[in-house]
């Protein structure tokens, strides 16, 4: 993408496909708004420690338990609306009494980290496999299809549920806390292990049709090596589907991660996590919906923005769906 873009020394007239897609994208108001939201989220996530410092709270302190009068003996915030106050802008968490605002901020970090990392791995693996298999065809293609079918048929959620304790007990020394990075790593690994399939399948089909295009034949005729063909002729042609897939995969991973945390096998305490917040929120929903509303709406907006962004990217890249 950067390769095609090359903002600086570009000639006035040169109109790369990326540039024209950018232009189309810039005209799409919804897409731009979605991009703004996504960027804002990323910014908030990146600067979370700074913001938290400015705000004067952190996501792990049990404020409600330390300061009398914030939580009832049952653990519910005493103040109305989830304990929203000047000290705690979004209220406090029922039970532990942590600060919701910082939890949300850091929770976004969690979601984004898992999502971006998984998607990065997915993109690399998916592109590598999709391109190679699409170009090679034959036996590789059959093996690939087989593996894809098997992976598609595997119930991912169940596997994650079953595997996370396995990972935990296999790789973590009993005397130590499971390091946060390991939780992240195992989540990312499993998301990536299944996530590359759709991308690779799409790319395989794309590449198979590209392979029939004459320019590949032309490259072969010129004497180009396989590597050249795959990397220089095919790769630049597939970044459009890859980009679309990536933007749409991010909300997918965020959702899946939240669902896992909701089921109790995602990221563990005390790392803040939206899915777990929602899960906690649904426990106190009938008493005080506030704690569900913040993470619920945040997740909705976030996923919505990413979906919209994905749509916009697709539209910008695909002249056919232009309205």
């Amino acid at each position: 993408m950067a390769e095609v873009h090359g903002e600086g020394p570009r000639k006035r007239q040169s109109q790369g496909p990326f540039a024209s897609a950018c232009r189309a994208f810039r005209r799409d108001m919804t897409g731009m708004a979605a991009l703004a939201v996504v960027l804002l989220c990323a910014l908030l996530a990146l600067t979370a420690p700074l913001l938290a410092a400015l705000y004067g709270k952190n996501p792990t302190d049990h404020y409600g338990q330390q300061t009398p009068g914030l939580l009832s003996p049952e653990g519910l915030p005493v103040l109305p609306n989830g304990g929203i106050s000047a000290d705690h802008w979004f209220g406090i968490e029922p039970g532990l009494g942590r600060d919701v605002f910082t939890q949300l901020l850091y929770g976004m970090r969690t979601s984004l980290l898992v999502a971006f990392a998984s998607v990065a791995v997915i993109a690399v693996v998916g592109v590598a496999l999709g391109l190679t298999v699409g170009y090679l065809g034959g036996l590789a293609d059959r093996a690939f299809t087989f593996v894809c079918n098997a992976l598609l048929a595997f119930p991912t959620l169940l596997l994650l549920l079953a595997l996370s304790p396995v990972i935990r007990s296999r790789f973590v020394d009993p005397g130590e806390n499971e390091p946060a990075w390991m939780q992240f790593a195992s989540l990312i690994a499993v998301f990536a292990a299944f996530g590359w399939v759709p991308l690779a399948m799409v790319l395989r089909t794309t590449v198979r049709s590209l392979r029939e295009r004459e320019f590949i034949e032309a490259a072969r005729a010129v004497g180009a090596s396989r590597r050249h063909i795959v990397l220089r002729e095919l790769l630049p042609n597939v970044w459009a589907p890859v980009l679309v897939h990536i933007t749409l995969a991010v909300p997918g991973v965020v959702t899946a991660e939240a669902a896992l945390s909701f089921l109790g096998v995602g990221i563990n305490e005390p790392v803040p996590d939206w899915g777990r917040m929602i899960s906690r929120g649904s426990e106190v929903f009938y008493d005080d919906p506030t704690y569900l509303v913040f993470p619920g709406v945040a997740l909705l907006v976030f996923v919505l923005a990413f979906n919209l962004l994905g749509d916009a990217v697709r539209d910008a890249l695909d002249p056919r769906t232009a309205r």
Partner: protein
Amino acid sequence: MTGYVLRRALQAAAVLLAITAAAFGLFYAAPADPALIACGPKCDTGQVEAVRHSMGLDQPLAEQYADYLRGLLTGRTIDDVDGTPIDCAAPCLGYSYTLHQPVLDAIGDRFPVTLSLAGGALAVIVVLGAGTGFAAALRRGTAADRLLSGFTLVGASVQIYFLGYALQYLLVYSTGLFPVPGYAPFADGPGAWAAGLLLPWLVLGFVNAAVFARLSRSQLLETMHEGYVRTARGKGLGATRAHLKYTARGAAAPLVQLLGLEAGALFGGAFITETVFGLGGVGKLAVDAVVQNDLPTVVGTVLLAAFFVVVFVALADLVVAWLDPRVRLA
């Protein structure tokens, strides 16, 4: 076409075989000792060994797998924890020492729930998804399109557990607008059956329909510009009729394929929906089995889920072939 069907069936069988191996290896390699769990916390080493023997866990993994496959094909006899032989008939998925039931029976008990839930949800997906997709595509660019697209976008972005809880509280327990979710066997009266599943159908259907609606909209928009649709209109066919007869037909293949995948996933058990609405289907069985380390049931439900995905994907392929003479007659 027969050749195609046969080839597809063989492929599906091979995939399933691979999945049995993978599931078996993965789950039996898990660290928790199934024998210890089955025997209970008060067992001493000797008892655990006895249980391990009756469970066949003292044999090499490959042999256990072979036994498993044999059971799957011909049925076998399995010893319960105390050595009582249990007859496990032909597609034997093993015996659950937690549920004290052959896994297949446990699944069979719950399958009507999953079947009912998945069937209804699929109907909602098709009607709602294709309906909104169609309506939006026909009116593309208008306010109606934006509204419908927004609606489906929200559907695609909302979490089922969030929506499920909220709706249940609002529509059932607070206001009583909807009947209490639950499962009453169809045989006991279709009315009660449908009433209990109404809300789960709608919620599960809505969330999945969103994806379906988005795909059908974009597919229809793409097909709408096909030459043959224009030809149909050139014959004097009205726009709607032309789209129904030609555009829809042209757009159908990816939709059928998506539906196949979704149907496969649904019939394998909708864990979260079942959890949210308290339905005791296969999904719940699977999650419980995972939580309780009930390996035979975990492997059994994984296989079942995979089986449905494989079967429905294969079915979808066949439907696509049937829909498209270019594939069918090739």
